[in-house]
């Protein structure tokens, strides 16, 4: 009995340790790689090197880092704020004032969640080209502002919003829109935090749509720049690792600071 238990524990912890090691290793690889030259990385060198500062300087020569970082931040923060506003207004509206007609509209909205982006991107590209909005950051964020998943997320969470608060506010003479901004938004801070993290990450990391509509170097995002650095015939991996660390840092920091909200945002859909 005891022997069996020991074996079971060896298996269990062995398996978990391997899983944890495999999960973390690429992060260690990224940090070690940032201190090594491209040749060393290609040869599989797994110890720290002395190239970190050199790699960083080279990166600055190869790309306009501050500009790219600013472009990515602008898109991610702007997109997040607008998406939260639009999606929470809609999620609130669908839940609080639900009626026969709105339920049908909501059903259609959820159905669009199933449509792959590949089926939308060509008409979207033609639409933005026609409107002269190619190469603009507004064009990057607009199509996903009313993301059905976000609306769904806010609607699900609105179910936990206490109705008494709303009735009390009505008695106090607040208008419906005032109730939303003065009562609902402050009450639902945790929901906004969770949705905000998810939204920020989606915009910050988006690749395909920006790749299609951003054409000039000045408008590109960090993600796009990293991708094109790595598609070189001899990729400068040490330099690229530095870039990847810079691009991953914001989400990594948010994850460690707000882990609870982070996970809540991802789980939001199965509540």
């Amino acid at each position: 009995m005891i022997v069996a238990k020991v074996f079971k524990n060896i298996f269990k912890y062995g398996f978990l340790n391997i899983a944890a090691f495999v999960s973390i290793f690429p992060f260690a690889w990224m940090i070690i790689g940032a201190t090594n030259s491209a040749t060393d990385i290609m040869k599989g060198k797994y110890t720290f090197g002395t190239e970190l500062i050199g790699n960083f300087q080279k990166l600055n020569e190869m790309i306009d880092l501050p500009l790219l970082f600013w472009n990515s931040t602008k898109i991610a923060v702007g997109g997040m704020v607008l998406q939260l506003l639009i999606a929470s207004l809609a999620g609130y509206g669908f839940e609080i004032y639900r009626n026969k007609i709105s339920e049908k509209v909501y059903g259609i909205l959820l159905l669009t969640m199933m449509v792959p982006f590949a089926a939308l991107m060509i008409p979207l590209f033609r639409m933005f080209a026609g409107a002269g909005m190619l190469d603009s950051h507004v064009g990057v964020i607009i199509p996903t502002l009313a993301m059905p998943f976000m609306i769904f997320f806010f609607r699900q969470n609105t179910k936990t919003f206490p109705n008494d608060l709303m009735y009390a506010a009505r008695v106090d003479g607040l208008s419906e829109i005032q109730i939303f901004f003065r009562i609902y938004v402050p009450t639902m801070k945790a929901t906004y935090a969770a949705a905000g993290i998810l939204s920020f990450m989606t915009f910050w990391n988006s690749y395909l749509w920006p790749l299609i509509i951003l054409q000039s170097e000045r408008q590109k995002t960090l993600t796009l720049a990293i991708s094109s650095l790595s598609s070189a015939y001899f990729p400068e991996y040490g330099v690229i690792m530095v870039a990847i660390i810079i691009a991953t840092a914001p989400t990594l920091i948010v994850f460690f600071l707000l882990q609870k909200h982070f996970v809540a945002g991802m789980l939001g859909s199965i509540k």
Partner: protein
Amino acid sequence: MKMIMKSKEFRRKLYYGGSFVLIAIILTSVFAIYPIINSLVLSTTSGKGVVTEFVGLGNVKRILVDDVFKQALKNTFIYFVFQVPIMLTLALLLATLLNDRKLIGKGFYRTAIFLPCVTSLVAYSILFKSMFSVDGIVNQTLLFIGLIDQPISWLRDAFWAKVTVVLAITWRWTGYNMIFYLAGLQNISPSIYEAAEIDGASKVKQFFYITIPMLKPVILFTSIMSTIGTLQLFDEVVNLTGGGASSPSLQATITLTQYIYDLSFKYVPNFGYAATVSYVIVFFTAILAVMQFRVAGDDRG
């Protein structure tokens, strides 16, 4: 009187509800519903650049004899058939192990396994590309422990390139799915397991007769999400193996979304044909979602 009250209340809800959801509805109509319809219309046309003509079902006929399309479809299904089950099984197994109250270092394991989810698809693909290069760390390690005697061409060989893609996606998304299962497991009352324990059911039996049936809705949800994800695979393949339609050796990993991208933006664009290919993804997404609902619904009734 009651009727009037009811319709007044209805109109009030319609008015306020409508105002709150208005922006979202307009945006969805313009940027989702219109494009879907437009895509369908486009799929009946063909031509290079701006000169297009109506071809009806001509594009569908062309799809049937298009080798690159067939390759892309095949690859997408290989990813789907192998990657999704491997990842979900692994995620379920890890979640079950982590759900143990007495487990030491639970928080560490959970955070570590979830960590890959914070990376962008582009970033992790490039990390994997550097690790899986011919002289890279993966080959070095395998050579060192004697599992292989020659370096594997992980990124260029038709077979191994697919393996690399599957490994990479599994690394990125297992923790994500595990979190869903963990949340689901926490909703199962421990008393069910205690009762099973008293009845003498083994841990394995408990897993198959309690855990899996109880988690069915979550398993269904994760498999639908993963299915949609696999059918839309793009970022990883482009950045990891670069597989594109341009050269035969790169076609080994090309996916449907990538082929649509190549058709639309890499050469002289043929939007009509690309739109037709995109409807193939719509079609399969719908079919697979319905199938998964059927499978999950079958033995419930």
